[in-house]
């Protein structure tokens, strides 16, 4: 038992040290990142928006797309995946007015999901680059231009990835915590990893890719539920880079209820479990820089949450009077310091994003005990669903995240 405890603490601390190094690298990258420079020739870009019943948000999304300022040829494709609401009607109106906005009805097919729709979008367009935005996104006018400039000026770049900001942060406690989590993810996993290892990861939205690179990689995997993470691994394994551009920002809506949040994140976790399984079968995922991505994937989606579960068990056990085995390590203070490191990372993200406020700091202080714990439940749920579907030989269906009316619409 003592050895087990020791191994757990060792892993826990290795992870915390790794994330602390990523935090420092991320802060360094943000402080020293140079402004993008204009390029001579701006290549053609196809902007793809997969949409299934997005009537609540699609008008504001297309309005933002119409405001994009891009010096080269830009075509916006609203890929309507069998919507039964007013999505088509809204897209049709935009397409009738703006020559560069197109409403495309995607033919029905299997398996359902974003990957298949994106593959269809790629088949009907012929630009040098393509960029993906989720249907609830509102990119800032210069977001695309900044990504293209970075992709064109970075050696061996497959494209570039930008930042995702939360537009409904102030709605409730949950959205505020999601926004904070996103800030940390982008500081540590995007900026930090890029600065330390020249590794970026596709975030599913506000991501630009060179068409030829995707064709070479074989397109999107239609069975991947976390298609962005899956593609990141393949592109990195092929030796490409994905530079991170914090100045390219898009604003998106996050789940406003716990039920929808758990549903969305369970899907992401299932997608990552699928990717883990794929990685264990594919040796190319464990070579060179891809090793860092894969090992971090295992640590984040498996080990870290399991460790969190262990720490909860010990915490509850000690509260209920159960005597923990004797070991030569100050467990209590180590656990306390984990909380301090976790909280310091969140605070760093607030400082770098210039988002420090009294209320945000209060949320940061309670996130370890609240928000982080939800992931334990979600991981258990995701594993259960994944294993169940594997045994029954079923394909796990794509599950669209429900949207919410903004305050103006309500």
């Amino acid at each position, binding site marked *: 038992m003592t050895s087990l405890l020791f191994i757990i603490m060792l892993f826990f601390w290795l992870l915390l040290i790794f994330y*602390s190094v990523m935090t420092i690298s991320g802060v360094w990258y943000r402080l020293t990142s140079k402004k993008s420079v204009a390029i001579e020739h701006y290549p053609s870009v196809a902007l793809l928006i997969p949409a299934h019943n997005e009537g609540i948000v699609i008008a504001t999304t297309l309005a933002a797309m119409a405001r994009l300022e891009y010096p080269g040829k830009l075509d916006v494709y609203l890929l309507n995946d069998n919507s039964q609401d007013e999505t088509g009607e809204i897209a049709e109106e935009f397409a009738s007015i703006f020559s560069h906005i197109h409403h495309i009805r995607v033919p029905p097919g299997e398996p359902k999901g974003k990957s298949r729709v994106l593959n269809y979008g790629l088949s009907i367009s012929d630009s040098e680059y393509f960029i993906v935005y989720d249907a609830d996104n509102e990119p800032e006018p210069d977001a695309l231009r900044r990504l293209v400039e970075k992709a064109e000026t970075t050696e061996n770049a497959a494209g570039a990835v930008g930042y995702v900001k939360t537009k409904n942060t102030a709605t409730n406690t949950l959205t505020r915590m999601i926004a904070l989590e996103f800030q940390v993810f982008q500081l540590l996993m995007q900026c930090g990893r890029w600065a330390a290892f020249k590794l970026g990861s596709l975030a599913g939205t506000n991501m630009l890719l060179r068409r030829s690179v995707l064709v070479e990689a074989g397109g999107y995997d239609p069975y991947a539920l976390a298609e962005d993470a899956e593609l990141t691994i393949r592109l990195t394994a092929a030796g490409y880079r994905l530079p991170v551009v914090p100045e390219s920002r898009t604003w998106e809506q996050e789940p406003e209820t716990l039920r929808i949040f758990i549903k969305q994140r369970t899907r992401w976790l299932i997608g990552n479990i699928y990717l883990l399984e794929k990685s264990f079968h594919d040796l190319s995922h464990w070579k060179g820089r891809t090793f860092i991505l894969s090992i971090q994937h295992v640590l984040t989606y498996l080990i870290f949450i399991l460790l969190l579960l262990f720490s909860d068990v010990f915490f509850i056990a000690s509260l209920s009077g159960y005597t923990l085995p004797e070991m*030569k*390590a*100050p467990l*209590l*203070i*180590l656990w*306390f*310091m984990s909380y*301090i*490191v976790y909280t*310091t990372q969140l*605070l*760093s993200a607030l*400082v770098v994003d210039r988002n*420090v406020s*009294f209320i945000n*700091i209060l949320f940061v202080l309670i996130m370890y005990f609240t928000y982080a714990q939800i992931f334990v439940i979600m991981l258990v749920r995701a594993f259960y669903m994944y294993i169940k579907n594997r045994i029954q030989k079923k394909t796990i269906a794509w599950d669209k995240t429900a949207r919410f009316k903004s305050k103006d619409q309500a």
Partner: protein
Amino acid sequence: MRNQFIFGLLMLLVLLNGWWIITADLPFSQIDLVLAGLSLIVMTILSSRFIFLYLAIIVLGYGGFLTGYSFWFNYTGTIQTQYIYDHLLVTSFLLLYWVLVHQMKTLAMENKELEKKVAKLEKIDKDTQILTPDEFLYQARYILSSTKRHGEAWLVEMDIYQKGVYTQDNLQEYLESIVLHSIRGQFDIVTAAPGKIYFILKDTDQAGIDIVFGRIATKRKEVLNLLEAPYDINFEIFTDEHQLDKVEGVLA
């Protein structure tokens, strides 16, 4: 009202936390006190960019020290709990003070931003009644586009070379006033930067310019004792944006 409440609350919490550090009977009470006191001074002096960095170093460093100490002496749960209290007292104190400093700096920055915006919105200098630099540049661009269709405009630079120790500002103000009263109020525009006065004469020719310069010379002789003009005048036809860029560089 909201700011007042937050500031009040934060100050109260900082004081309470400080009092707690002073009165607490913990293993490292004296170190807690030194860290808190020292941090008050350092965080007040440091520039805002480094305050958080300092906070993070102290919080993590002190935590590392306490963890190492517990490891070294293999301390039990009770002593570890006391160390955690030690750390919590210092961390909460630093965090509260950091938020307080941050809130104050944010307020000061907002104030500065507002002042800048007001200055930009102001069209006329309240002392001399000439145009503010921003307004001058705005109107100059408008004049430039209109002269492309009809008439011509002249950009005049008055370079004040007379450098008095005590009279510099007054001399400049006099000259600004002289120029303002020598041009046509409804058509021409004027602004100034230290040591320079710029004006644009619209829809006129060489004869018109000579008349304006003549008026300036006459008025100068009325108010100044100087035999020679304390300035040089350069003028050219106002035809393109680059001329304005140069002026903008001086006015900035």
